[in-house]
């Protein structure tokens, strides 16, 4: 739908405006700074709501589109819009940013710069999900690196400098290759049509030669795989998570990692359908490896945050798996799982943060019997844990179930192995929960714990409501995805078949050979 009022632009740039306003507030006035930042985030979230309500479910077209020429000389335009795939990631971002600002209430050190970084980060993240111009996308993609880098580096833990530089250099290394691929596509489009443009929708129509598809896919793959992070590109993640402040961890897990998976859906699949199909064996096996590896490593962690970080590696494996099985269930499950992971892991990081604020330790061994002192927290912690495991009735179940269903349709072996990841996740999460929350209080420090206050309740309650809502009644969400996901898959499928026909191979022969190589 074409709305006259540029909602997307408003929602995206309001935080930036807020950051500029904060610049002019005296850094001493901590309360005022926090309130302004919170107000900006709340308004931002409220004005993003119409997107959900006004979103048309019966079309796969991009909605709320705005297309204004920006750098005419290069054919770069400010082209934004959302469809069923980006809608929820966009909303998740504005929701989690609000949560994070509220979660940072106890930051004492240089709150002004902190809030400015948070708000700029929010603009960068929102921008990534709405960009329909490759150049614009890259701008936002890189823009959000700087505030995240500062968040970890300035307000992080003891090894923050190492972690933040590792995070930055890893991500940057992946993305420059993507930039080259983007520029390459740009000239390829020019050679084919005579038009210089970075417009994604126009480049979608490009018929890319197979050899080029291979390399371009790889270039995009590195950028996204590092961001996700897929096994074996995940090593920056535990470091970054452990050192980041709570809000940083929430944003990192909740939104930043999704950019990688979103990138696969939005760019890799439709741009390089043939190469995507070719890479399916490699990627699905890497995804499965990530699921199992992440779960196993999570099991032996002694640090709560590290445990949750590795569980992310495992969960993101499911998302990747869902995307690369090329059917509706898998894809919708994958996208839903992105949201779910954002909610449940976000909640887990918040809870770890709350425990840390009280006890200044993240070691599992230091806790035990916390339930007795913090019964309310225990409830929320339990829900988040079970949601992360994928208990039926909670959101995690819907996503994982759809992904596994889709996987079973295309490759039984992979599906069987991936399912064992669910069992493993039950092991490490429940074991962790038991050690932290149950048992007797052995450490006298723990007997002084106070239960969560109203602000912390306000953080956890909305997330928990969403966890239940998606778990029990996911239809409003899935129905908004349907048209776009179907369209995407048909688009990919048609282009793939077209290529096959041109190659003169029948699909059966090729699939047979693929299956063979997978088994």
């Amino acid at each position, binding site marked *: 739908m074409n709305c006259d009022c540029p909602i997307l632009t408003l929602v995206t740039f309001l935080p930036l405006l807020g950051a500029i306003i904060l610049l002019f507030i005296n*850094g001493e006035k901590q309360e005022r700074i926090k309130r302004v930042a919170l107000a900006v985030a709340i308004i931002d979230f409220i004005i993003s709501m119409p997107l959900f309500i006004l979103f048309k479910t019966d079309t796969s077209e991009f909605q709320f589109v705005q297309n204004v020429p*920006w*750098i*005419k*000389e*290069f054919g770069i335009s400010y082209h934004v819009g959302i469809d069923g795939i980006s809608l929820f990631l966009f909303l998740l971002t504005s929701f989690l940013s609000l949560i994070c600002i509220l979660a940072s209430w106890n930051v004492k050190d240089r709150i002004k*710069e902190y809030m400015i970084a948070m708000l700029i980060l929010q603009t960068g993240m929102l921008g990534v999900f709405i960009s329909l111009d490759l150049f614009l996308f*890259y*701008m936002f993609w*890189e*823009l959000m*690196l*700087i505030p995240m*880098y*500062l968040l970890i*580096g*300035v307000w992080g833990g003891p090894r*923050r*400098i190492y972690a*933040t*530089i590792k995070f*930055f*250099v890893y991500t*940057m*290394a992946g993305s*420059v*290759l993507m*930039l*080259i691929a983007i*520029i*390459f596509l*740009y*000239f390829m489009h020019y050679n084919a049509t005579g038009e210089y443009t970075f417009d994604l929708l126009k480049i979608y129509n490009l018929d890319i030669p197979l050899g080029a598809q291979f390399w371009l896919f790889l270039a995009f793959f590195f950028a996204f795989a590092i961001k996700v992070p897929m096994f074996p590109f995940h090593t920056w993640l535990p470091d970054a998570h452990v050192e980041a402040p709570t809000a940083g961890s929430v944003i990192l897990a909740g939104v930043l990692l999704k950019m990688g998976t979103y990138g696969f859906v939005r760019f890799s699949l439709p741009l390089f359908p043939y190469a995507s199909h070719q890479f399916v064996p490699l990627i699905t096996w890497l995804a499965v490896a990530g699921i199992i590896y992440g779960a196993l490593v999570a099991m032996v962690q002694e640090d709560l945050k590290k445990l949750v970080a590795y569980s992310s590696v495992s969960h993101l494996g499911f998302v990747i798996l869902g995307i690369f099985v090329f059917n509706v269930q898998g894809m919708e499950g994958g996208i839903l799982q992105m949201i779910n992971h954002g909610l449940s892991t976000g909640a887990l990081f918040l809870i770890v943060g709350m425990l840390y604020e009280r006890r200044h330790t993240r070691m599992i061994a230091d806790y035990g019997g916390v339930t007795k002192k913090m019964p309310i927290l225990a409830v929320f912690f339990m829900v988040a844990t079970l949601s992360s495991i994928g208990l039926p009735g909670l959101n995690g179940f819907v996503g994982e179930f759809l992904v596994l269903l889709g996987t079973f349709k295309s490759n039984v072996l992979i599906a069987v192995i991936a399912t064992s990841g669910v069992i493993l996740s039950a092991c490490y999460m429940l074991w962790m929960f038991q050690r932290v929350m149950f048992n007797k209080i052995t450490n006298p420090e723990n007997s002084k714990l106070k239960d969560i206050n109203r602000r912390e309740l306000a953080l956890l309650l909305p997330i928990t409501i969403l966890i239940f809502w998606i778990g029990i009644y996911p239809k409003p969400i899935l129905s908004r995805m349907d048209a776009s996901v179907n369209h995407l898959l048909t688009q990919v499928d048609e282009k793939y078949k077209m290529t096959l026909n041109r190659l003169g191979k029948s699909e059966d022969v090729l699939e047979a050979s693929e299956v063979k190589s997978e088994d």
Partner: protein
Amino acid sequence: MEIVIPPFDLKSISPIVSLSIAAIFILLLDVFCRKTFKDRLGYISFLVVIATGVVVYTQIGQNVYSFSNMFVVDNYSVFFNLVFLLSTALVILMSENYIKQEGVNYGEYYTLILFATVGMMLMAGGADLLTIFLGLEIMSISLYVLAGFTRDKVRSNEASLKYFLLGAFVTGFLLYGIALLYGATGTTNLKEIAAFIAENSGLSNPMIVAGSSLLIIGFGFKVACVPFHKWSPDVYEGSPTPVTAFMSIGPKAAGFAVFLRVFHVALPGLQPKWSIVLWVLAVLTMTVGNLVAISQTNIKRMLAYSSIAHAGYALVAIIVGGEFGIASLLFYMLAYTFMNLGAFAIIIVLGRKGEENANIEDFSGLGYKHPLLAVAMCIFMFSLAGIPPLVGFIGKFYIFSAAIKSGFIILAIIGMINSVISVYYYLRITVVIYMKKPIREFAPLSLSPLIISAIIIAICGTIYFGIFPSKIIAFAQQSAVLY
């Protein structure tokens, strides 16, 4: 024998003439005026540069050869002249306070800077190897003196002497190259050389090949590309900081202006050969510059190596050539002017008398003490690292786009990987600024309205042209034709 005096076309060289006259005038003012008036010399020079900029601006769109085809005014030279004048203007703004503080407030300072600018403008407009050589020497000799301007300091003297000796040595190479080319082709005019080479397959003539190799050495030295870069870290470190800032922009840009014009106008026939040589040089320059920059502890040295790396990116643009390549070089030079001069301006502001705040560690905790300066420094560092939405990103994007368009994909990939390496050391500055505690008290800032305005101009340029580069790109594209 009849001697024909070629017609004088003073209009074409009016910016150069007016700037030279102004420079001499300032020298005289320095001698004949009262002491108190001396403080105004900086303002006067600044106004002179601005006025010259206006004159240059009116030359847009003219394509004129003058003085028996020895000098040319085209949009290409106009663009470069504007870059030179911008950098000179900013450097003058940055110098005023510094030279007073260091006790070297002599009028020659401005005169020399203006003369160096005259030399650069002559280089950009040179259509003949002799004009180019003339310009290059005017520029270099001024710089030799400027490098040693804080004459009481050993390091400054060392820098000056080193620069002079090596520079003089390289001048020999350059002249020898010019002589060989003249011997082979019978002319020093760029276009006539090209015509000669086109007619008599130049590749097979060893004199032409040797001559152009020597030219690569000569120009390579001036733009400090590896392996002719050894002078630059020492000279950068030892020279007075504003002079270092000046050397990192103007003379380099002038070197590139000449480099590109000579090789694309006079020697396009040899392109298959020199583009391979330059390819290797570009890769070496980027890689060595970035790798060595990582281990530097002195910020001026670090910026020297970073500037070597940036020369590598610019070489990529020269290899690519064509409208796209030239436009990207032009854009990059402007982008580099803003971000690099900005960084130097901050170094100057933080400097103490007699001892520039030159170690990276000295920036520790700047973010706590002087938040605005810290933000500015970080913006310049991020821009140098090529992170959007800052002008340095657009510049790199432009150059590597041009490379990919012309099929230099490996070169582009190497360049991109290099820019990731560079991120590491630029980030280190921001790490020190925001994430380390101060190791000692900061000196009182040497702020003056002039240097503040220089920083503001640099910041505005870095951000504004990063987000809205359209106009500059359009101008660069118009200027990308070598008349």
